[in-house]
């Protein structure tokens, strides 16, 4: 197609707008990264924008020297890994069973699952139920309540129904059990869906802190995200006294930026690789509408 002056103008506008937006998306992270590698007191003087002025890795050394963080990282990693695996398997399993046309009472079941998506008893009754089950103050309170994602069950029903029925019939003729069909046919055919689901629940688990506030009092069970909040709250109270002493918490920024980077790093490492899957996975839900 011939390019006109109008086209060029549109190109310029498009690129300028997009670059501004992308800059806004990336720069805050870059700034925090720079600050985590810059000497704490120096950073507070201001004027550091693009590159560390006094480069140091002390912030990280100090950070990882604190044993409380190591424990929090352990909790965060285990709840992310266990939670993502449990949620993906269980949600797929239920979604798959509900997607089968031969399932008796299928419509009733499906209605029950959709209905449950729109109702909620609220926090306090939920708390009481967890207390009854003895889940409070255990690691499993992070896993069980989120093990089934109703939204993904519904998306999954749509998705699994696109698997040709003849595949199931062939497998059944060969004497495959339902569990076998699920593990050896359904899961391998649904990698985009499973990857999306796993990524969503992993990110959800990794970022989650509210459940720790609600259901856990044991310090040993606190995840990273929780300690991030407590660091912030500490800074806020310190800020009020800052004017009086002037020297209070000069290195808080260093600690905070280091913690932010440590928290973000695993997500950043994983998501470019899963990207092609979850774009596909996101579309599954929308295209079927």
């Amino acid at each position, binding site marked *: 197609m011939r390019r006109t002056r109008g086209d060029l103008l549109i190109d310029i506008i498009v690129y300028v707008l997009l670059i501004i*937006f992308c800059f806004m998306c990336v720069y*805050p992270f870059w700034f925090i990264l720079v600050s985590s590698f810059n000497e704490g007191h120096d950073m507070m003087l201001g004027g550091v924008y693009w590159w560390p002025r006094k480069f140091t890795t002390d912030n990280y050394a100090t950070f990882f020297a604190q044993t409380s963080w190591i424990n929090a990282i352990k909790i965060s990693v285990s709840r992310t890994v266990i939670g993502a695996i449990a949620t993906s398997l269980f949600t797929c399993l239920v979604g798959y069973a509900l997607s089968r046309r031969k399932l008796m009472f299928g419509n009733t079941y499906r209605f029950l699952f959709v209905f449950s998506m729109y109702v909620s008893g609220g926090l*306090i*009754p939920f708390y009481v139920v967890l207390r009854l089950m003895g889940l409070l103050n255990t690691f499993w309170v992070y896993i069980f309540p989120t093990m089934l994602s109703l939204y993904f069950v519904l998306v999954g029903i749509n998705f699994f129904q696109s698997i040709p029925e003849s595949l199931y019939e062939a497998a059944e003729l060969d004497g495959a059990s339902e569990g076998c069909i699920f593990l050896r046919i359904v899961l391998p055919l649904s990698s985009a869906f499973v990857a999306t689901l796993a990524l969503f629940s992993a990110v959800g688990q990794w970022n989650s802190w509210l459940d720790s*506030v609600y259901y856990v009092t044991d310090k040993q069970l606190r995840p990273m995200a929780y300690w991030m909040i407590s660091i912030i709250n500490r800074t806020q109270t310190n800020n009020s006294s800052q004017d009086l002493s002037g020297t209070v918490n000069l290195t808080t920024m260093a600690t905070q930026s280091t913690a932010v980077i440590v928290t*973000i790093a695993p997500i950043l490492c994983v998501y470019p690789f899963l990207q092609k899957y979850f774009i596909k996975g996101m579309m599954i839900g929308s295209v079927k509408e």
Partner: protein
Amino acid sequence: MKAVTLSNGWVRYRRQWQLQLFVFLGLVWLLLFSWAPLFGIVIAFKDYSIRTGVAGIFTSQFNNFKHFVTFFNYYNFATLVRNTLILSVTKLLATFPAAIIFALLLNEVRNKAAKSVMQTVSYLPHFISWVLVYTISLYILGEQNGIINELLQKMGLISTPIPFLSSDKMFYGLAIFLSLWKTTGWSAIIFLASITNVDPTLYEAAAVDGAGRMRRMWHVTLPGILPAVVTVLVINIGAMLGGGMGGSNFELSYMFGNVTNCNTSSIIQTYSFTMGLSKGRFAFATAVDLCQSVISILMVISSNWAAKKISGSGLF
């Protein structure tokens, strides 16, 4: 006859017992984590104390809607409702068109590599929790050590720092800005996907008819993605009070709310959180939650009605 069909049914059922078992496991989960808490709502109408445990839910006395009366008479009640509604509605009004515009702009980028880099970058903020967004904001927008204020002051544009994070007047704008930052790229995925489904011959035909790029965008791309737009809009209006596309309103208000901006930042959810968890008034908090759910349901119903009026199709 009936006995025969019944026993046939039973045979069929037994033959697919494994499938039924999978569903049964799901139902057990639903019963425990979704339905059981529903019965607990009754404590909103009672004088309930957490110390009495489960039995207390049934034995405690009804109190003539005392908690609701207390909540309605709370001097900040109107403020809470106003903030809840304004934050939800403005966030939707801002983030929804932004996602469409972003998808349209990105679609105009011819360079494949640039396009994929921009897309990857744009949904980076989606994966970051509000806790981190807050921490980062302190150093970007903060009064004392935020670089925006630092730069503006250096350039002599302002003499005193702008209190982005600690002013009643700033909070709505801040919330909208952060929601845009966090969700625009991510929400655009669906629109980008449906743009690729638009028939390319339509563009050629439009070009032959002399339509420029703007007109092709307006007359071909937009109508092409309209079904996706309507679907996503209706879903989001339904989820609006919970935060909709902008992610959770609760976490935003909780993290960014403080003494200096509580007139515009406190919402029903943060109030119920403070009352229930910090103050231990569980029954009262449940009543507050229930009010929020009622408003939510009303919004879902009315938005669905509006969607049906406007586009001819709703969710239910």
